[in-house]
């Protein structure tokens, strides 16, 4: 493959043709912040936090989707870039609860990280904020759309699973919101709670309910584990606090990897020290069910008992 030479922050760089500025910078260890970018998802270049200055361009350009060109001269932290990033962070914060002290994602939040990086203590803009009710009418996912920064990763990851696409953008402009059809809650939707969306959310808008209040991010170790319930081999994380596994969370979804609820519950049963009783939706309501039923093994268990129980 041919290589392209360009200059990033005064450094000569040579990267494969077709790379993005973000790739090229990363190869040099130059950090560029991103919210909406995810290598496993189609690009949208919508959050604009990754904008950089390319010599000769009138406007700033998103590093995540702009392909490198021979001779390109890029600045990733020029005064214009820093002003833009600071302003974008302030704009997001102007419409985002500042309850980091009690937020589950404290310590694992990109918004928090970048605000720290660029020294944003508070937003200079005061005005209308969203005031959506926090949704926790299902046993698995807490959804707080006031914290959503509309990066759309959840929408894109949900759409990657054939026949799912439970959520999408709804409404327009300032009122844009990620929502299931008819703007209902996840609990009322066809969501199967695989947790892909939770895994990709860069802020505290989507959380695992079973883990809520169980520990701060820095108290928890995450150990990767591969699910063996089917041949997909999805990656999950065992969340360990004080030596005890307190929950299982979805890992990064790969292409064609469904990350199903059944798999995660199975992992919880196998690995958690104190697994929470699973719940399934019966009609409109969630009900506690046996592990055998939750894992779809009721018939199998019966048969095993019959054969081996004698």
């Amino acid at each position, binding site marked *: 493959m041919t290589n392209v030479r360009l200059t990033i922050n005064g450094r000569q760089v040579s990267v494969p043709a077709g790379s993005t500025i973000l790739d090229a910078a990363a190869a040099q260890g130059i950090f560029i912040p991103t919210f909406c970018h995810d290598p496993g998802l189609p690009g949208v270049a919508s959050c604009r936090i990754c904008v950089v200055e390319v010599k000769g361009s009138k406007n700033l350009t998103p590093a995540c989707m702009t392909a490198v060109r021979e001779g390109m001269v890029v600045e990733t932290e020029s005064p214009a870039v820093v002003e833009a990033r600071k302003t974008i962070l302030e704009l997001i914060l102007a419409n985002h609860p500042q309850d980091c002290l009690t937020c589950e994602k404290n310590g694992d939040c990109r918004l928090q990280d970048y605000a720290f990086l660029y020294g944003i203590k508070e937003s200079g803009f005061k005005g209308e904020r969203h005031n959506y009710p926090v949704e926790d009418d299902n046993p698995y996912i807490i959804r707080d759309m006031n914290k959503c920064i509309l990066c759309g990763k959840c929408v894109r990851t949900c*759409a990657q699973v054939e026949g*799912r*696409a*439970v*959520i*999408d*953008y*709804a*409404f*327009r402009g300032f009122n844009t919101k990620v*929502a*299931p*059809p*008819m*703007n209902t809650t996840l609990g009322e939707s066809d969501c199967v709670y695989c947790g892909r969306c939770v895994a990709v959310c860069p802020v505290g808008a989507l959380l695992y309910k079973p883990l809520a209040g169980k520990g701060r991010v820095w108290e928890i170790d995450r150990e990767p584990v591969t699910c063996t319930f089917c041949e997909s081999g999805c990656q999950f994380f065992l969340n360990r606090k004080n030596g005890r596994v307190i929950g299982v969370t979805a890992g990064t979804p790969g292409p064609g990897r469904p990350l199903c609820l059944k798999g995660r519950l199975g992992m919880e049963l196998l690995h958690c020290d104190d697994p929470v009783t699973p719940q399934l939706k019966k009609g409109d309501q969630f009900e506690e069910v046996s592990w055998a039923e939750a894992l779809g093994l009721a018939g199998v268990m019966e048969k095993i008992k019959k054969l081996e129980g004698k």
Partner: protein
Amino acid sequence: MTCKCGHDDAATKQEALQKALDKYRTVRGALIPLLQEAQEIYGYLPREVMQQISGALGVPFSKTFGVATFYAQFHLKPRGRNIIRICQGTACHVRGASRIFESVSENLGVGINGTTDDLRFTLETVACLGACGLAPAMMVNDDTHGRLSPDKAVETLKQYE
């Protein structure tokens, strides 16, 4: 839209919808025209209709809902038989369009984009009707009414059943 000949209105609408679904089933980029036709038939986009459209086109329901809520033309709630559009253009604004709106709103008991319970009126605003010489103006269905006063605006509505 309402059929007065006595036979089932819902069935007539469903039949019309089915025709539209069959027409667009294999057409690329059919979601928006199909929503437009469905709204023509029903006057708005009921949940079940959007679900049928999603099913026929193989488009996720979440996307259909997203598209329907993106474009100003689509309405998810039943609209009134008569649509009132009060002009918000500059000329109308300086001649008291806000007072016209307030008095109509108060009289009907609905706010912006609201529909009266008897489905007689829906109250909307419009950026400009282009009737600046007749300011303040409003449109009821396809009729433009100009040189309004708050009382005259309310009076005008009486002719619409």
